[in-house]
């Protein structure tokens, strides 16, 4: 099956500055997170995908539509939730969503019905009848989400959908995104700086830095370390226990929150760790296969030079 979004060597220059440098990507159904530091080219990539900017070179395809040639059709198939606090002044929440639906070619009455349905899904109550200017940041966030969804697009591009939300609302928003991706089969491109959100919902991760794709892989694969290792948490003096493990000939390094990472094949290694713990008189709280944290993956990818060296 073809990918829903496919980019081939897309570049975008602003004068002499290259914002996107030969970006090649394939994005399937499910949730793909687009990560990158500020100025990495994420917004430019989104604008190229939406046809708001013309790529300097390269080719791309959304569903069956060519980037740059079928912009109107592409925008019919994409729901975009901008990061910026953008709204239409003087309109109530429900009118804003209705207008968005009408701009996406819904008839007036059907747009109103659909707007109410989507606002219900987004957890907006009677506040939908207030003008948007009176909304809090969280309410505006939900409104933009509703506007992106109202025309039932197969592809969603969500730019920082959880920023400005309280923890409860954040969880609800992530749940909605999961429902859309898992139950309704939509492809979601999630741009965010909040790594726990990515870890919570994403199937795949794309990391952009300096306009280049540094990482494009499923989160499952990225989480598996290159060398097998175990992460050990102990009750007692972790530093002394780490020294004991080192003296016993094991390759160890300290991790965050007093954890110890021990490199080696899992089956034989756990046995030796238990023995060393008994001898040292420390209690083992947990032994589990270690996984790469997204933060480590992100920082490594961003620090990497464009030619592939750290």
């Amino acid at each position, binding site marked *: 099956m073809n990918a829903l979004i496919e980019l081939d060597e897309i570049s975008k220059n602003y004068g002499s500055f290259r914002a996107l440098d030969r970006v090649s990507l394939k994005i399937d159904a499910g949730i793909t997170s687009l990560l990158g530091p500020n100025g990495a080219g994420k917004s430019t990539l989104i604008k190229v995908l939406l046809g708001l900017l013309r790529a300097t070179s390269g080719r791309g395809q959304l569903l069956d539509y060519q980037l740059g040639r079928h912009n109107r059709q592409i*925008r019919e198939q994409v729901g975009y939730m901008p990061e910026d606090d953008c709204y239409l002044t003087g309109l109530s929440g429900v009118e804003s969503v209705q*207008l968005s639906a009408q701009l996406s070619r819904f008839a007036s009455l059907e747009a109103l019905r659909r707007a109410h349905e989507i606002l219900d899904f987004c957890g907006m109550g009677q506040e939908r009848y207030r003008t948007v200017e009176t909304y809090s940041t969280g309410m505006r966030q939900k409104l933009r989400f509703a506007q992106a969804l109202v025309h039932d697009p197969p592809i969603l591009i969500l730019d920082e959908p959880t920023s400005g939300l309280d923890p409860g609302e954040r969880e609800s928003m992530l749940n909605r995104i999961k429902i859309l991706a898992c139950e309704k089969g939509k492809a979601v491109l999630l741009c965010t700086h909040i790594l726990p959100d990515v870890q919570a919902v994403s199937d795949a991760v794309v990391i952009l830095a300096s306009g280049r794709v540094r990482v494009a892989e499923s989160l499952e694969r990225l989480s598996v370390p290159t060398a097998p290792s175990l992460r050990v948490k102990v009750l007692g003096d972790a530093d002394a226990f780490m020294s004991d493990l080192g003296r016993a000939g094991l390759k160890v390094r300290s991790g965050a929150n007093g954890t110890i990472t021990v490199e080696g094949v899992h089956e034989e290694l756990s046995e030796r760790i238990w023995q060393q713990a008994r001898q040292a008189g420390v209690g083992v709280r947990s032994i589990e296969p270690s996984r790469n944290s997204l933060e480590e993956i992100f920082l490594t990818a961003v620090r990497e030079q464009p030619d592939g060296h750290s």
Partner: protein
Amino acid sequence: MAIHDVGYRTWQGKLASPWTRWMVITKAGVRRAWQSSWLKRMMFFAWLPAIFFALGFFLWEQSLLNRDMLRMLDGPMRHQMQDLDLKGFSAGLQIEDERVARHSVWSWLLYFFFRYPQGGIMVLMVGIIAPPLISQDVRSRAFLLYFSRPIARWQYALGKIATVWFYLLMISAAPALLLYVLGVFMSPSVQVISDTWDLPLRIVAASAVLMVPTASLALCLSSLTEESRYAGFSWFAVWILGWFTYAVMTAVELGHTAEPDSTTLEKWAPVSLYHTFGEVQGWVFGFAPFEQIKYAALLLAVITVVSTAVLFRSISAPLRA
């Protein structure tokens, strides 16, 4: 809480035509503008002059039935009408052929209706409607909401321009056509329609002359700033400064000319948009040859083209950023 939350449902319906999306923007703009109480008051005052001009139609038609009234209009009231710059009206009274006279008088009434009351009210009304139309979208970054949809720049621009056109139609063509219909009903026979068939077309043309350049210029100013008040200030400055310059220059010119004629005043019309519009509308209603107003028409065409080009460029700018 939602009354009937059905969760997320996919949608499979029939989509509307992509070519009518600008109307969605227009409807939203019209509804939004109508929330202003100032605009409602302005609309009320914009229709008041129509009553005065309806009286003109009534008097003229009555004068054809009652010669005493014609003598009164042509006699004691002649000076008042000349003071009011209604020379054309009294000139029409001199024409022997009733059918020709009717066409002339109706044309003058409609021309004056466009030129004086509606011309002034148009400046005020556009000054209320147009400044926030695009500047607020720039300020609230609503461009992304529009252009992430299947909306082209021309559809956005047309939607916004049509919002201004709608209100201008409501104060120009709509009352003028109503006056015309009123005139037809007050006239003694239906033959009047064949005598004046061209007047509805001239009304539409005069409205277009009023609407197209003004809407383009006003939205061009609106697109250049995030602050509606700056756009409003620029709009009024264009009209007031132009009118003031025209008044000063013609006064100086008349003071230095021994035998002033119509060209003395026409020469300075291009400095004032108000007078430029007046010149072209005079041609539309048949009171001036095209040769006399060609520069005024060219000026309005240039204003329209340049304003529209700037408007399109301004609309694209936030997307390129």
